[in-house]
């Protein structure tokens, strides 16, 4: 199998991590988390890819024709749902933080330490 999809997924994960480490805005940080998550979509879909194959819908395909792996597509869909729920929850927390604390900069949240 080609190495490129693995490298692409690793790169996307690292970009997301870099963004999270250096983020000065929590909305941006949650966005970076979503970027890191998209590395899982890329990896999952790449794993199930077959050259020259088509979508795994057998309504108008003869039985036995090459199709890509439907399992990883189902996994990626589940992953999207999980990601959407988590992102929405985290963004709601950020909005509350802005309302109550007046800041979305993680550097200003210094009450919990030591």
């Amino acid at each position, binding site marked *: 199998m080609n190495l490129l999809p693995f490298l692409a997924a690793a790169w996307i994960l690292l970009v997301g991590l870099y963004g999270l480490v250096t983020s000065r805005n929590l909305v941006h*940080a949650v966005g970076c988390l979503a970027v890191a998550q998209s590395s899982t979509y890329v990896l*999952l879909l790449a794993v199930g890819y077959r050259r020259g194959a088509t979508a795994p819908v057998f309504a108008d395909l003869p039985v036995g024709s090459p199709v890509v792996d439907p399992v*990883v597509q189902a996994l990626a869909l589940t992953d999207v749902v999980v990601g959407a729920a988590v992102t929405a929850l*985290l963004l709601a*927390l950020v909005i509350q933080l802005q309302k*109550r*604390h007046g800041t979305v900069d993680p550097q200003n949240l210094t009450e919990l330490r*030591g």
Partner: protein
Amino acid sequence: MPSTAALLPLAVAIPLLGAVVLSVAGRWLPRLGCDILATAWAVADVLCLVLLWVRTGDGRAVSWLGGWEPHGGESVGIVLVADRLGGGTALLAALLVLAVLVYSWRYFDEPSGERAGTFPALLLLFEAGMCGFALTGDLFDAFVFFELMGAVAYALTGYRIEDPRPLHGALTFGIVNSLAAYCSLLGIALLYARTGELGLAQLGRELAGQHRDALVICAFVLVLTGPLVKAAMAPFHFWLPDAHAVAPTPVCMLLSGVMVELGVYGAARIYWTVFSGPGGIPHDAFRTTFLAAGVLTALIGTTMCWQQRHLKRMLAFSTVGHVGLFLIGVAVLTPAGLAGTAVYIAGHAGAKAALFGLTGILLDRYGSVDEHGLHGRARELALPGALFLAGGLALAGLPPFGTGLGKALSEEAAGHWAGWLPAVYVIVSAVTGGAVLRVALRVFYGLGPRPTERGGEPETTGEGEKPEVRGPTRLLPPPMLVLPALLLLGCLAVGLTPDLGRSLARAAELFTDRAGYQAAALGTAAQAAVAPPPPAGWTTAGVLLGLLSAVLACALAGTAVLGPARGAARPHSAVAFLGRRVVLPVRRLHSGLLGDYVAWLTVGVAVLLVAVAAQS
């Protein structure tokens, strides 16, 4: 009566359904109705899991969802598998959820109406996630349940959205844990790419026929990142004290009592079923790596625990210390270590949940969880004070508490591997127990001078916490006092019931039987395991070491409370030197900054990768 196979999905479905019913019915039911409904639902799930525990016996219960059973060892279905360790973990979670629901009957001052059913509904949803994670036999399902319990835990942590601190803690918790879950998913994808399987048993079978290479090692480390971050292994532990310090007290009882331990369970289950065979990760590599990680976690948790003045944060760090011990127990890779850890986790859940519950009483009465600010103020609370002392002694491993038995069993198993490991058990128990005793003596008995403030050091005070309850004029609600007492009794019962220890020992033997798990989960013929179960009773050495750590804990607490004041130590003494050069830098690492924690997560994954790769 439902069949045994039906009990497994029921254990997950009952709380899920309950969450839906409560969030709908909560809109028009009065507060009392919500409480009764939620409690009844939690009781139903406990009964279901007790029945499962009885029916499972010393074997495994298997359930193929939707009737997609395997044919000739091949399957496209999803399987739930319960043995006594998995089912027992789910039962522990269900029992704690029930305790927490009763504890919080009158805890929050919620206006009835739209949100009345939300808190119990979230608790039931949390329970569904935990039970599912404990019972699943499928790696991707484990990820989904992991995220379900994670997302609910973030919401519960930030439940009091009026306060900035819970929001901060919940955000850190959410981002770090979700990131770890995505790492796990990457690992799952890598494993699927190699084997084309997702079931734990199938993955183990396929990996056994393969050559071990970089992909398997990467997949191993990535898959385990999720459970290990949940388990707060150093350096993945930073989120835990921040989340526990700010979550509502009933939620802390669940997070510390069982959710963190589920991470340890997940890591052990995944290693034993998937990676322990040929083509996986060699036992020596796993053992060395995770013994080192366990010892590091234990020492960091203990050091930080002693330094805290914020009560919940102190209890949270003591959880980190104990998780280090659980990791050591799992990492020795013997049934004896696993059995000891299982008993330890059961006892620890009772003691730690009780201590959090008692801290909730302090918060309820005085609106503070600060050791310094509360000095001598809680003299009128005689019974909670006595219970707090008992909880501290339980944490220190005093026989015959369940924590003492678990500590004795796992330190003996660890001692077989390396003679110095029992010392780690004694130190962690003594210092974390001592810190709790120190607080009890100061807060409930007013002993010693009021501690001096430390200027210029990184510190979280427990002042200015919003009481999570209505005005402090009301009477103490009875459940808030009865529940901690019952939980401590439960901890005592774990130590005094030899049958429980013995059945957990047989379950540990079963847990490490990889071939048996594959046979059960794939429906092929099983050969019976013949190895005798490890011992699971009190031994003289165990009792003596338990007494030793309890005496040490008392001595530490007494010295801290009655001894010379802080700062009186000579500036060149060893204690002062250690404090300046070791403890202070470690405390500075706990900066509360999200970026730092994510950086530590990355470093931890990289170190694990290098360590495992170098030894395989």
